[in-house]
């Protein structure tokens, strides 16, 4: 038996022994996600147990180095952990932008001191991070951001406004793009900086979305003082860090089309609209749409697998994550359009218990942001046209 097969067997056994049954059920509400942070509360005892066991094993982030509280696993092993967790439906013990976004950037660009300071608190779920990128006049055109950081001795003094800061009102720290040189060309005067959200001068205001939820904030900085040592990478070269991190974010978002999505669409639809004597959906037009969707979904899933394998083989194009982000988000929007169509009038209820508080229409509306956040579909296509196809003037 190979080492990997051994590892798989051990992983399976460990998960079987340690993952509480409650943590193997599909999540049904926002409270089922544990985000960590200073004010974190567990919504249930099994949630606490599961988190702590995984944390102690280093598996809140299996592929990070052990010195930072990760599992020290290589890519193949980490994949096995993901697969075995998926096989029993195990929930993520900890979800955080520290893991998915800041961490990779720190590992690539951070100083030793920064890594030692921040990464262990991420893996242990002690600090919850948020991302300060977009501004009211810097959305798709992110690099035109205006939040300024003025040098004052060993500190920067930060003033400006961010928007679309995810859960800023719950976050402990922020990783943030600021303009440290107003006279440079727009991509050249930006720095990537970290600071505590309890710093003087920071305030947040939740944004109510069309889904009825408020996962984002407007975030205001009024003379926030931050030590210069909190800059990640080189001052004025923050755009490199931002781009690196955006690629991670895009790869993550592109996976949404294939994430644990419950029952296959065809079966969901069969329940609401019925089937004919041959077992085909009664709504034959809907059946066509679902089948076309599932073909594209299966193809995307193969493409995601291939993207990982190409990266391993050193053959992937660095801009390919934009292609996947585009396709994955557009596909996820299609999924929810189909779910709404299959759901019919029932899927239009907004508040009843029967509809779990309008879970489906709210999720449907939420997907409309997929092709905007992390770079719009239009920006993604532009990147592909320019960086992969090398079209003139793109």
């Amino acid at each position, binding site marked *: 038996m190979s080492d990997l097969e051994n590892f798989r067997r051990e992983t399976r056994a460990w998960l079987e022994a340690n993952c509480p049954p409650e943590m193997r059920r599909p999540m049904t509400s926002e409270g089922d996600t544990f985000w960590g942070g200073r004010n974190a509360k567990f919504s249930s005892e099994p949630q606490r147990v599961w988190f702590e066991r995984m944390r102690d094993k280093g598996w809140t982030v299996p592929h990070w180095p052990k010195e930072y509280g990760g599992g020290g696993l290589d890519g193949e092993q980490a994949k096995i952990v993901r697969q075995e967790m998926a096989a029993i439906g195990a929930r993520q013990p900890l979800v955080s932008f520290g893991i998915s976004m800041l961490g990779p950037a720190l590992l690539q660009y951070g100083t030793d001191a920064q890594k030692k300071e921040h990464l262990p608190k991420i893996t242990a779920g002690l600090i919850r991070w948020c991302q300060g990128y977009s501004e009211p006049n810097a959305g798709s055109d992110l690099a035109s951001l205006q939040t300024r950081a003025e040098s004052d001795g060993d500190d920067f003094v930060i003033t400006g406004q961010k928007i679309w800061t995810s859960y800023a009102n719950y976050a402990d720290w922020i990783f943030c793009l600021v303009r440290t040189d107003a006279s440079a060309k727009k991509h050249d005067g930006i720095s990537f900086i970290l600071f505590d959200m309890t710093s003087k001068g920071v305030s947040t205001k939740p944004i109510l979305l069309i889904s009825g939820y408020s996962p984002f904030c407007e975030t205001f900085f009024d003379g926030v003082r931050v030590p210069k040592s909190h800059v990640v990478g080189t001052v004025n070269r923050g755009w490199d860090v931002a781009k690196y991190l955006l690629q991670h974010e895009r790869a993550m978002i592109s996976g949404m089309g294939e994430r644990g999505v419950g029952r296959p669409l065809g079966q969901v639809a069969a329940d609401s609209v019925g089937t004919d004597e041959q077992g085909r959906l009664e709504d034959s037009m809907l059946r066509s749409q679902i089948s076309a969707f599932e073909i594209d979904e299966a193809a995307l899933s193969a493409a995601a697998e291939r993207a990982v394998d190409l990266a391993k083989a050193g053959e992937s194009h660095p801009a390919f994550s934009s292609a996947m982000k585009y396709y994955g988000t557009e596909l996820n929007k299609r999924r929810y359009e189909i779910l709404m169509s299959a759901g019919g009038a029932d899927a239009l209820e907004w508040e009843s218990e029967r509809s779990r508080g309008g879970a489906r229409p709210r999720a449907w509306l939420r997907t409309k942001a997929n*092709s905007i956040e992390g770079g719009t579909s239009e920006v993604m296509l532009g990147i592909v046209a320019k960086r992969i196809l090398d079209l003139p003037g793109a």
Partner: protein
Amino acid sequence: MALVLTEEQSMLRDSARGLISDKAPVSHLRQLRDAKDETGFSRELWKAFAEMGFAGLLVPENFGGSGLGCVEAGVVMEEIGRTLMPSPYLATAVLAASALSRGGSDAQKSAHLPKISDGSLLAALAIDEGTKHRPLQIQLQAVRSGNGFKLNGAKAFVVDGHTADLLIVAARTGGAAGERNGLTLFLVDPKAKGVAIERTAMVDSHNAARIEFANVEVNADQVLGEVDQGGALLEGVLNIGRGAVASEMVGLSEEVFGRTVTYLKERKQFGKLIGEFQALQHRAAELYIDIEITRAAVLKALQTLDGDFDHASAAVAVAKARAGTTATRAVQEGVQMHGGMGMTDQFDIGFFMKRARVCQELFGDANYHADQLARMKSY
């Protein structure tokens, strides 16, 4: 007949637009929603509507209405679509007025139509039972009992069901699910024993209800039209409703498109107005063309309903399907082109997306009508 509005119809449009844009811009719906208003619309505004003759538009003149046609009803619905005004117009003035005018006895007409015209009576049509619109699948049972019937079953997605003074209920008096024969319409008092009404809070903040009927007793004179022969009446009334909702979607699509084009001319990114980007220009142009073609298809359906009612089903199916597809596209492009702002509740555009979804579902979505059209054409 020319496929344009007549001068009278244009004047009607202007007068409806004046009232609605003045008294019921989108902020009107927003206020009702935020206040969790129990009624879900403004009775005062409905009175003003009735006074201007809109409530009785489809009611014959001898019953206090103006005896106009589906084109005129569509004109009003289109204006409603522009601001998403919640109002009893669709359920009462279009569906119930048509059902009573077309199927009612003189006594029934005299009893209800004048009150519809003057705005004092609100009504609702209860059809759907499953989650998708399948009128032939109606199973709510009406069993003969004494001089009348007893109703047992449940209805869902009943527009204005919780504010109605009168319910028009489609029930099965014979035949099996799937058959057109054996359907009968009943006029039911919502306060009658055995009727249980639950208002359903909807994604679009408009009114709908679920209604249960447990041994509800109705008299023979509460039958609307002929027993067992209600299928044709129902289909006719539904076609009028489909044309009306298609009109609402045309208004909605145009409004969203207009707002989006305005945004394209105001919002700057990358040092340019985003409307300067050719990829967005082409998509905007395609959407414009889509809306214009849908507008023609909807007007064609309304004119056919007015001119050749019994052969309007194909034109209505085309109109409702196209309008649903176009509105879906319009709100999707609208939200996407507004970027992050389009996702905020503060911008109105989400209201249009939500209402478009409900309109798509009302009286059969695009898939339903595409299937119906294929059946009509034998393939």
